[in-house]
């Protein structure tokens, strides 16, 4: 994986994905190592994303690397009309690796073709966010002991959530059973379901999340955004149907854990945070270890 860009989760084979998870375990045990000493990492955020940026910058800092970059396009040369190609070529001269987030789909792939340093995609529009996918996989493996034979429920907006799409595709490599819970308007697109079918796996669709609570090992919650609905009345009808409350979790499996890519709005009640089955903040922390593993392996340091 040395010197290779990571744009889409499919850029890594199953074995390479698992290798990153293994390396991340090592960083969880020993998160502060001075292995990026003398390395300069650029974090180019053409659109703001506090959580992802801070997670990357924490990973870089904990490994002793130096950070250059910008946190939104307004404070960069982009506001003067510079093309993405020119920005990337220039920054590639100044750094050993570029982490980038950009509002347009496909921007990171294009950047990886023009840069002579590796690019790690931290989100390109609605397209891909592979480090989120890897940290989700890490969190599932860590809480369940294995990625094989998991029953997972995805709840909420399954139509537009790129996080859900990438994770469904990745988990289709591991004999997963999928429980898809969403309003009719926000069902998983058939192009994504095709990955499940092509892998010979099964999925079940529901509109009521109570139907899946006692079946699953992982409950993956997402937020439903009002602007996704053509008809605001439809949003009002469903907005309270996909909120996780403690009492709904009484008959869930002992090993069940709740994941959420964050930020949360109201889809998980705050009281659930105290429930030992809530795992979403630990999940965010796992992102730092996974990103440490990616940075170190892409730079050929481990």
């Amino acid at each position, binding site marked *: 994986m040395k010197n290779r860009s990571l744009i*889409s989760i499919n850029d890594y084979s199953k074995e390479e994905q698992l290798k990153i998870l293994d390396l991340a375990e090592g960083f969880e045990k020993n998160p502060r190592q001075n292995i990026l000493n003398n390395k300069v990492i650029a974090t180019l955020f053409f659109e703001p994303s506090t959580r992802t940026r801070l997670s990357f910058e924490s990973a870089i800092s904990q490994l002793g690397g130096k950070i250059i970059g910008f946190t939104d396009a307004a404070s960069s040369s982009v506001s003067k009309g510079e*093309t*993405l*190609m020119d920005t990337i070529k220039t920054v590639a001269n100044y750094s050993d690796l570029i982490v980038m987030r950009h*509002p*347009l*789909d*496909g*921007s990171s*792939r*294009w950047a990886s073709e023009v840069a002579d340093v590796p690019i790690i995609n931290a989100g*390109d*529009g*609605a*397209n*891909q966010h592979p480090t989120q996918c890897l940290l989700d996989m890490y969190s599932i493996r860590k809480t369940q002991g294995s990625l094989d034979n998991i029953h997972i429920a995805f709840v909420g907006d399954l139509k537009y959530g790129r996080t859900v799409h990438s994770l469904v595709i990745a988990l289709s490599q591991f004999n997963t059973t999928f429980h898809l819970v969403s309003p009719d308007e926000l069902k998983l697109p058939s*192009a994504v379901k095709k990955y499940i079918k092509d892998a010979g796996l099964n999925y079940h669709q529901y509109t009521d999340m109570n139907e899946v609570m006692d079946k699953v090992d992982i409950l993956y919650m997402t937020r439903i955004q009002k602007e996704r609905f053509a008809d605001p009345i439809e949003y009002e009808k469903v907005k309270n149907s996909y909120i996780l409350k403690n009492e709904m979790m009484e008959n869930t499996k002992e090993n069940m854990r709740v994941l959420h890519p964050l930020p949360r709005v109201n889809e998980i009640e705050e009281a659930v945070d105290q429930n030992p089955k809530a795992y979403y903040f630990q999940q965010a922390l796992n992102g730092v270890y996974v990103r440490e593993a990616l940075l170190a392996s892409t730079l050929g340091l481990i």
Partner: protein
Amino acid sequence: MENKRTELKVSALENGSVIDHIPATSLFQAIRILKLDELDNQVYFGTNLRSDKFGSKGIIKIRDKYFKKEEINKIALVAPTATIIEIKDYEVVKKGKVDTPKVVENFVKCFNPKCITNHQHVPTKFTVINDGGALKLRCRYCEKTTTQATMEFK
């Protein structure tokens, strides 16, 4: 009484190419894809012609012009049934079908308005997917699939 002509008379080509069996609905797209409107050569075309095999077809004749295989294969996206005939000294010297290309570079637009290729000077690149006979194009950049219904040519 003068005999009325019942057929449009198009002179036979001495040298050049004939593209036949183009679905009538795709004729103008094929002309655009091959950029025939930019040629100085004589170009003849006919459309909505009766065809026993295809119902309604279009045909194009281009004088003194031969196409490279990869050039002519571009029209497979809109005219997979097309045949290409090369003529030299009024004789057919070569006849073949178009082949579906594996990749399509820089003559189709990505249908996704948020794709980087629609915002900056990025040449488009697609992998051709054959979905039960229907050709679809998967964008190398945004990874979205452009179908025949959403296909626009640059």
